[in-house]
């Protein structure tokens, strides 16, 4: 055996395990391993490690898909600040703020064709419509309710005698002639009767 052949295989043990050596180098490595106990042990160790890794790999979840990896890469791309959220203040009305051109608003769908400000505007429109509807219904209800008089106070028996006296106290000032006409009570001779002048 030559000196070279007696030198250990070193990194070529791993290449042998991974089946990456040429046929000539592989034959030389195998001749050396047959004669070298150290390299034979190293080869056994590395084969056991590869077998262990292979068994672990078959039991683990599949790796991320290319689309996921692409999205992860996209997140890593540097960009501008997030658009500020629309706020309601006492000083003014709700003003939707549009994101910078080319920037997708936070939370918007990638394929959305609507600009983000229209969502806030639509919400305000719905609120306005709701308020007007409620006001209209209240006015219509009030109009109906106002058409009837106050709720009845229950059965009433008019004080006709008192009312007749009250009538006589005012009628004397509005007719000329005979205040005593109201003295007569029931008709004594039933039946239609009239007297021509």
């Amino acid at each position, binding site marked *: 055996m030559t000196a070279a052949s007696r030198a250990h295989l070193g990194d070529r043990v791993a290449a042998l395990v991974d089946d990456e050596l040429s046929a000539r180098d592989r034959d030389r490595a195998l001749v050396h391993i047959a004669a070298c106990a150290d390299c034979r042990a190293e080869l056994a160790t590395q084969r056991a490690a590869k077998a262990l890794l292979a068994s672990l790999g078959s039991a683990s979840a599949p790796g991320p898909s290319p689309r996921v990896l692409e999205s992860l890469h996209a997140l890593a791309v540097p960009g501008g600040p997030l658009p500020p959220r629309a706020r309601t203040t006492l000083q003014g009305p709700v003003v939707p703020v549009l994101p910078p051109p080319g920037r997708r608003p936070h939370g918007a769908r990638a394929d959305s064709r609507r600009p983000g400000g229209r969502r806030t505007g639509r919400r305000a429109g719905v609120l306005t419509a709701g308020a007007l*509807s409620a006001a209209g*219904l209240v006015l219509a209800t009030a109009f109906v309710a106002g058409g009837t008089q106050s709720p009845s106070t229950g059965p009433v028996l*008019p004080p006709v005698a008192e*009312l007749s006296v009250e009538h006589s106290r005012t009628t004397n*000032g509005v*007719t*000329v002639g*005979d205040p*005593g006409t109201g003295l007569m009570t029931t*008709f004594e001779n039933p039946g239609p009767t009239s007297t021509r002048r």
Partner: protein
Amino acid sequence: MRRLVPAVGLVLVLGSLALLVLLVVADEGQLAPSGQARGSKEDGPLPVVEEAARRLLERGAAAPATASYTGTQFMSAWSSEGTTSQVLEVSHTPADGTTWRGGGKAVRTAAHSADLSILGDGAVALMSRHYSLALGGSARVAGRSVDVVEASRPGAAPARALAARFWLDRVTGLVLRREVYDRDGDRVRASAFVDVIVDADPDAGGKADRATERAGRAWSSTLDGAALQRMRSAGWDCPGRLPGPLPLVDARRGGTGRQIVHLSYADGIASISVFQQRGSLDREHLRGYRRDTVDGRDVWVRAEIPRRVVWSAGGTVYTVVADAPERTVDRAVDALHEGAGNGAGSPMDRLGRGLDRVGSWFNPFE
């Protein structure tokens, strides 16, 4: 789904507004104009008033404030219900008013007049606006010389034009005889002195206050035009005129808690009082009335002098007390039926009243 939200909101808005407009338009078609005439239009030829006739009537209307008299008077009335007559002893002084006695006891004491809150220019002014006045010659009543004044309906056929005839004492001006006719020319009221002793008292002015105290005063809570408008806005049915035509001359509130509204309508010859109070008619305890139907609605009638008609509609009980021809009373009741429950004022009044009412539904303290 998201596109449906604004569409539904728009429908609700337009629907509510359309409902409101429909209600207002429909209601305006039903509302009788507040304060306007109720019933058919009756504007006709203007009355022709002879000044001498008007002066005699003015003197006759003022005479009870200055003249005292005693005598015997008969009174008669005619209607579809029958006839009635009474003979009464009458005594009158400016201080004590008029007292009638029948069968030895006083049956009524009356003061001369009350101050009117709407049209306060007197009975003769009222008559001059509605009737032509003319002198009708001279005659004698209870042995005294009298001047005759006739009141007639302008534009009516001669046989139906006469509305009333007055016999006025030539010395004192007192009305010693009076007859009233309806639109068919039928006599419906008559009264006359059989005998009378007159004592003119030129110093009697100012004494009538005692008579008013004795006979009792009309309800003191008067309503002027502005107060009446507020009443209309609050839902009370207060037409400015009833068929006849009979204009509104006086309005008051009274009764327990001032809960009764009294509207007086008169034309100088006929008078109708309309009383209104909230509630529904207690028919079970109504005695002495007969049921009748006016414009398809039930009314209860007491065919006396004065005539009384009672009914309820729209949460209000109406009581009509009338010294007027029967047909005039019926037409007034018809007209009041037309407006029952519609005395709501303008649509804005109605809206304001409705908002108050809706608000009260949510007020736990009401």
